[in-house]
């Protein structure tokens, strides 16, 4: 009786597969292990020897939910390695493509994966039997994200139009302009979604986070900026001087920590909002005040509200770009050969995604390093579970498992991404 274990064999309503192992000793929560058993796919090994221009199509396959994030971090890192300058138009269209992915991914997570926890349903599909209008609105928003990805990227999952230096082809004006009416509706609908989720009942929990996100002086961050944490700004080129990856026995995804800190850190919507709230576009910013979201916000259950504000932000920015778009100039800057070394970070829907490439003189990849957001969040998730569940150690296994799963979903973990796999530097037992 002095020791019991609670296991969640496989989480539901998360992307990819992982489980949880809790050990309770003498009535105290002794150990929490987020177990990631997704089979390794070894991307960093087989990227070696591939041509730099093949990389964006290959790394997209790390994640079906956020392929654009992988394409964006890879093209920016390779452009840095090869000294390619992109045009302002390409830069804006890349942000537009990212808006499509944020809209699709955030609308999916909010409606089909996370909201059912607050309203007490096993799935978004069951929730639709009682909240039909809200789920239909969410699906319509999600569809707009996919339509934008299709117009600009060719298709929603694993878009085909992203190239080193820009795009294979610039969209015609009418291909993008056709989306304007839907996006006008979407800005308002997304605002209503935020008002809806802001009214949920949130468990009381303070993660007291060390946040990490990109920060850009003029914009809400997507493709560019420095890496902000509580005490310092780090250039994307210096990631390895500030952060470190390590392997643990119970996960095929590497963990990460910030050097000189004894606590983990959090990436994702709460972190982005923490550093960039004043750079939200007007509708999103007004709404953040209207709903009274506290700043800073350290409650992970409220990430759904932050995600909602980013949904509004993505609609607002996309609408502006769609209205102003006139194709001019070349679709892409021409690539020069290697050698070179470059890194880049962009903001995937679930947080900072860092890539680094070394390119040979013949333009093939010598070395690739990819650090996805969910790997970075793993240690924080375990840490939060331990403090959140510690007062509940007397509860039944079912209650504990249920509460644990609710908390895990708030990070929108993408386990497929986290186990793509990464190169390792150190090991701690």
């Amino acid at each position, binding site marked *: 009786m002095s020791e019991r274990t609670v296991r969640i064999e496989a989480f*539901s309503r998360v992307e990819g597969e992982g489980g949880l192992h809790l050990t309770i000793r003498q009535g105290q929560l002794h150990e929490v292990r987020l177990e990631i058993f997704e089979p390794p*796919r070894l991307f960093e090994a087989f990227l070696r020897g591939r041509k730099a221009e093949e990389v964006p*199509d290959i790394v997209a396959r790390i994640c079906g939910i956020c392929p654009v994030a992988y394409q964006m971090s890879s093209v920016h890192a390779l452009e840095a390695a090869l000294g390619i300058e992109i045009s302002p138009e390409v830069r804006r269209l890349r942000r537009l493509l990212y808006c499509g992915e944020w809209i699709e991914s955030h609308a999916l997570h909010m409606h089909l994966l996370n909201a059912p926890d607050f309203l007490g349903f096993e799935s978004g599909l069951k929730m639709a039997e009682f909240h039909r209008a809200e789920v239909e609105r969410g699906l319509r928003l999600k569809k707009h994200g996919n339509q934008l990805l299709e117009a600009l990227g060719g298709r929603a999952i694993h878009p085909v139009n992203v190239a080193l230096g820009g795009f294979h082809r610039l969209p015609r004006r009418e291909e993008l302009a056709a989306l304007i009416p839907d996006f006008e509706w979407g800005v308002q609908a997304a605002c209503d979604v935020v008002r809806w989720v802001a009214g949920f009942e949130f468990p009381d929990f303070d993660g007291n986070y060390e946040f990490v996100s990109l920060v850009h002086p003029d914009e809400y961050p997507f493709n560019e900026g420095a890496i902000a944490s509580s005490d310092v700004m780090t250039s994307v080129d210096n990631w390895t001087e500030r952060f470190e990856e390590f392997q643990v026995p119970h996960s095929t995804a590497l963990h990460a920590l910030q050097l000189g800190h004894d606590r983990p850190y959090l990436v994702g919507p709460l972190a982005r909002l923490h550093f960039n709230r004043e750079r939200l576009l007007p509708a999103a910013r007004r709404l953040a005040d209207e709903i009274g979201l506290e700043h800073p916000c350290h409650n992970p259950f409220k990430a759904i509200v932050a995600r909602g504000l980013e949904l509004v932000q993505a609609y607002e920015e996309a609408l502006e770009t769609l209205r102003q778009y006139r194709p001019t100039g070349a679709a892409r800057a021409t690539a020069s050969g290697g050698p070179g070394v470059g890194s880049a970070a962009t903001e995937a829907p679930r947080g900072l995604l860092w890539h680094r490439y070394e390119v040979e003189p013949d333009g093939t990849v010598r070395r690739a390093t990819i650090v996805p957001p969910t790997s970075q969040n793993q240690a924080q998730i375990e840490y939060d579970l331990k403090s959140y569940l510690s007062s509940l150690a007397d509860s039944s296994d079912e209650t504990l498992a249920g509460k644990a799963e609710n908390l895990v979903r708030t990070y929108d973990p993408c386990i497929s991404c986290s186990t793509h796999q990464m190169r390792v530097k150190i090991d701690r037992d």
Partner: protein
Amino acid sequence: MSGLPKLAVYKFASCDGCQLTLLDCEDELLAVAAKVEIGYFLEATSGVRGGPYDVALVEGSITTPHDAERIREVRRQARYLVTIGACATAGGIQALRNWADSDEFMRAVYARPDYIQTLATSTAIADHVPVDFELRGCPIDRHQLLEVLGALLNGRQPRTPRHSVCLDCKRRGTVCTLVAQGTVCLGPITQSGCGAICPTYDRGCYGCFGPCGQPNVVSLSDEFQRRGVPAETLVRSLRTFNGNAPEFRSEGQRLSAIARKEK
């Protein structure tokens, strides 16, 4: 219990994109969900109802000893098993390990490869258990997915065309990128299904739906070689998401022997 056909969705080594395609059927999702009882679909629901299942959709390839066992149980529980996507039908991009030293791959990625159990190869579901229908694509196309589900719900055999991407380019009126610009394009040997997207974005098809029916792969690579494309480039273009599909695999092997000589 409900009298509705019971559906299960499983994941093996994959990116999640093919099962996401089901959730991407935004207009049809609620209607489809009303016609089936979802027995097992972890990405969409916490509700799990035991097998057997009338239809199992299987995403991902077999890369671990555990998964090689698990797929047998999935097969036992499924009346009709459909593989969805390039990983499940051909081994996926992770099958690139099949032509490499997989121990070296593991060492390149993990400091402690001994923590992790993995196989030396990534293989298709059909290499392990009988498969009733294979849906192609990296990712699959949602219209084809709806055709398969619609057919099975109505008790008929699903049908997806086996012709090449070329035919779709002609239908769309897309100028041939291979003929007009000399681009390396796998359209002539790749199965239809994506809608012939890449040539409309000014690039060659990269084969994400795998080999079409009776592909003349050798003839196409001979033509590219006559035009001066190195064998090594052709090996790389065949060895992506469907590199382990039989027709692409054998031509990849033939060309890589030529590439070694060219070096």
